């Protein structure tokens, strides 16, 4: 199978010449997002990680953030509005956060413990005047462990969790702190606040035209002097259509286009557009049903289909916009461990294992996979699934693709493999971000995470995985926690709970004028060091 099986109209561009119009202004970065609307600017951004990328870490700071300054290693936690955090000795439920002093909101008011309490109250306390249901929906989802909170002094807060949870600091990367003074000034109206937000972040919102444009300007008084933005202006444009984003970057209408299509890679390169990629904390696997009536209850079948996937071939089809995946994380990641099961392309071994499991030409294995047409972070599901369908056919497996529109697929996912509507479907193709231990591993592997509670779609119930998951949550020493995570991942790969396919590379099409960009191994971006030349 070759990439030319999937031409788009833009493929014809190969034969045409082009000219790039000069950028409108030096120092202005124009970004074409894949979103159809500007994410909410109230410090509780909607629209997933792309929302957080553009409306979260730009205008706001969280208590804790990610170090996005390195491209060669996984993005790790670093202090932000909290300078230190640790659980109280002898009481792992209570976390104490020391707050940064001398920080100001964009409206000039001072950041302190009251602002943190306000930012929690607005999402968690229904009786509080600042409570807002839309904010609650975002906060609660990302901070499930938060139980209560109190101010200890002007620059210290204590947050209590529902259970001992060593992974709690990761949840605080989503607690963006909004200015209570600005909210009061705007008549306690969150809708007004969304157009005139005030955070402590390196960027300030200057103009917001819903569904059309957001213009951000640097916060020259930003507390971290090394991260004061170099650009004069950052313009965010919602351009959901991929060919429109490609045309926009080729014509010089934007300087930065998110997620270009694989079949435009050559054309973009010819035009001098830089394709920036890196290994992302993201995976594109098949989650398998391990319920008793599923063929995947047999580990030999799970391993066989892992051997059946030609990952290198698929990466070629995608013009390099992916890297082969042999686990939830890449082998150089501290959580990878040393699995004995080597995920690789070996059709002969796949056939042998299938025969051992009782499948043959006369009695072929038939499986159904629920897939989407497209969706947030789903890469190119139709191309990729059809490629794998061919791979499976080569080893005598009939894969039927049951195609859903993205939201319909999410509904199937929430039902779990055990759901009545998923009868007969034993594979789910849903890609996932894996920025932290919970999102990357824990949420798939414990019986307590079986839907509707969590995302253990396949009903994985392995005592060793369950026990390791519990130990990880109770281990507060980062080094020991990493060791346990490596053991968990190792077991997960050895059990072949998923069929691993590829990791996304977070492709960006950048004008050659864009300088200073560091492609961190994270869905988030630090726009501060970027400048235009």
């Amino acid at each position, binding site marked *: 199978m070759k990439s030319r099986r999937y031409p788009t*109209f*833009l493929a*014809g561009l190969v034969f*045409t*010449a*082009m*000219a*790039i*119009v000069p950028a*409108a202004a030096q120092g*202005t970065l*124009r970004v074409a997002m894949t979103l*159809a*609307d500007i994410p*909410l600017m109230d410090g509780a951004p*909607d629209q*997933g990680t792309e929302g957080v990328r553009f409306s979260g870490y730009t205008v706001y700071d969280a208590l804790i953030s990610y170090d996005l300054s390195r491209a060669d290693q996984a993005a790790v936690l670093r202090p932000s509005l909290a300078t230190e955090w640790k659980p109280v000795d002898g009481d792992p439920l209570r976390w104490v956060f020391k707050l940064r002093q001398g920080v100001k909101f964009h409206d000039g008011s001072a950041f302190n413990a009251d602002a943190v309490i306000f930012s929690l109250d607005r999402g968690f306390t229904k009786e509080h005047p600042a409570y807002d*249901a*839309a904010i609650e*929906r*975002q906060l*609660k*989802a*990302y901070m*499930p462990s938060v139980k209560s909170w109190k101010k200890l002094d002007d620059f210290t807060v204590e947050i209590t969790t529902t259970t001992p949870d060593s992974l709690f600091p990761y949840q605080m990367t989503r607690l963006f702190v909004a200015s209570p003074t600005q909210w009061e000034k705007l008549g306690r109206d*969150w*809708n007004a606040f*969304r157009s005139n937000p005030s955070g402590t972040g390196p960027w300030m919102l200057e*103009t917001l*035209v*819903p*569904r*059309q*444009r957001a*213009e951000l300007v640097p916060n020259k008084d930003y507390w971290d002097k090394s991260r004061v933005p170099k650009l004069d202006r950052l*313009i965010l*444009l*919602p*351009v*959901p*259509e991929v*060919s*429109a984003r490609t*045309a*926009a970057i*080729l*014509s*010089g*209408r934007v300087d930065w286009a998110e997620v270009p299509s694989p079949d435009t890679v050559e054309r973009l390169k010819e035009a001098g557009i830089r394709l920036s990629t890196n290994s992302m904390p993201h995976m594109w696997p098949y989650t398998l049903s391990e319920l008793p009536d599923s063929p995947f209850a047999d580990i030999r079948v799970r391993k066989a289909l892992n051997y059946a996937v030609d990952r290198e071939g698929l990466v070629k089809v995608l013009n390099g916009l992916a890297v082969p995946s042999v686990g939830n994380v890449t082998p150089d990641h501290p959580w990878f461990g040393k699995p004995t099961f080597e995920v690789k392309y070996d059709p002969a071994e796949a056939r042998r294992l299938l025969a051992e499991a009782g499948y043959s030409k006369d009695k072929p294995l038939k499986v159904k996979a629920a897939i989407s047409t497209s969706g947030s972070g789903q890469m190119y599901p139709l191309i990729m699934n059809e490629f794998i369908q061919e791979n499976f056919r080569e080893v005598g497996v009939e894969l039927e693709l049951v195609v*859903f*529109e*993205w*939201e*319909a697929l*999410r*509904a199937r996912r*929430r039902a779990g493999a055990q759901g009545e509507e998923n009868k007969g479907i034993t594979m789910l193709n849903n890609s996932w971000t894996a920025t932290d231990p919970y999102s990357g591993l824990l*949420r798939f592997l414990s019986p307590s995470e079986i839907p*509707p*509670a969590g995302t253990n779609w396949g009903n994985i119930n392995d005592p060793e995985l369950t026990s390791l998951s519990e130990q990880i949550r109770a281990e507060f020493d980062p080094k020991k926690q990493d060791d346990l995570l490596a053991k968990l991942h190792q077991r997960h790969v050895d059990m072949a709970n998923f069929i691993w396919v590829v990791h996304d590379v977070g492709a960006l099409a950048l004008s050659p004028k864009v300088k200073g960009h560091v492609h961190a191994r994270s869905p988030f971006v630090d726009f501060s060091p970027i400048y235009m030349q």
Partner: protein
Amino acid sequence: MLLYVARRLLYSIPIIIGVTLIVFSLVHIAPGDPISALLPNEATAEMVDQARKDFGLDKPLVVQYAIWLGNAAVGNLGKSIASGRPVSEELTAAVGNTFILAISAGTLACVLGFILGMVAGLWRDRALDHAVSLFTISGVSLPHYWLAILLVIVFSVNLSWLPPLGMGPDTSNGWRPDWAHLQHLILPTIATAAIPMAVIARTMRAAMIEVLDQDFVTTLRAKGLLPKRVLWHVVRNALPTTLAVMGLQIGNMLGGSVLVETVFAWPGTGFLLASAIFQRDLPLLQGTMLVLAMFFVILNLAVDLIQSWTDPRIRRT
């Protein structure tokens, strides 16, 4: 005449209610849960239930419909689930933007379609007719989406003559009729106008030919009427059919083309509708569809009135 208008207005009420009922049913039959679209992946079942309650989606469908219709009747279309902004506010901006495109594309389609159709009809089976037919068949056959991408490739990417997306320059605050904004309008106008122009031209041609074959035209010619006077009578008789088609085509344009607006990131009703569908934003979807349906009803009424003005026979029936 007044009675005729009143009767037509009365007819439009069940049409609008019927449309709302169909829209309401369709969005509920479609797979996928609006609450699932609204909440992050990490949301718990309890949060899903709470959100369902917050938006009244836990009530029986009939009750939900009655509440929505009651609110819509007094002009309250609710708030967008995704953005929290009032649907009426979202719609006002989008309808304004689509109007700009529809007026521009509608004018181009009607004027060009009318002239081409008339010319083709007058010179039937001659080279000019064949050329116009080729042109209009191409216009009808080209998908909007494909034409839009092609225009962008040629005029934006290769020639760098016109911008590929948006309504105006980076720092534009609202649309203005200056060159900086007008240049953003050219490509979407052509892409939107292509099909309606071709349909209007073909209708006009057929109508012209039909009228030209009628006895009264021969009589007019035999009476020695000047050719331009004959043409006036022919056009006047061909007009009602063409006007009806023009009305429908402009109605289509006012609905905003989902595909053209998406390709050009033109923030009109089509663009709004597409994002409402993908986000399962029920209030926004229902509100947009209702307003678009009302446009159609009003426009059809306007066309009927113009037709009855140009052709008294319609009034009598």
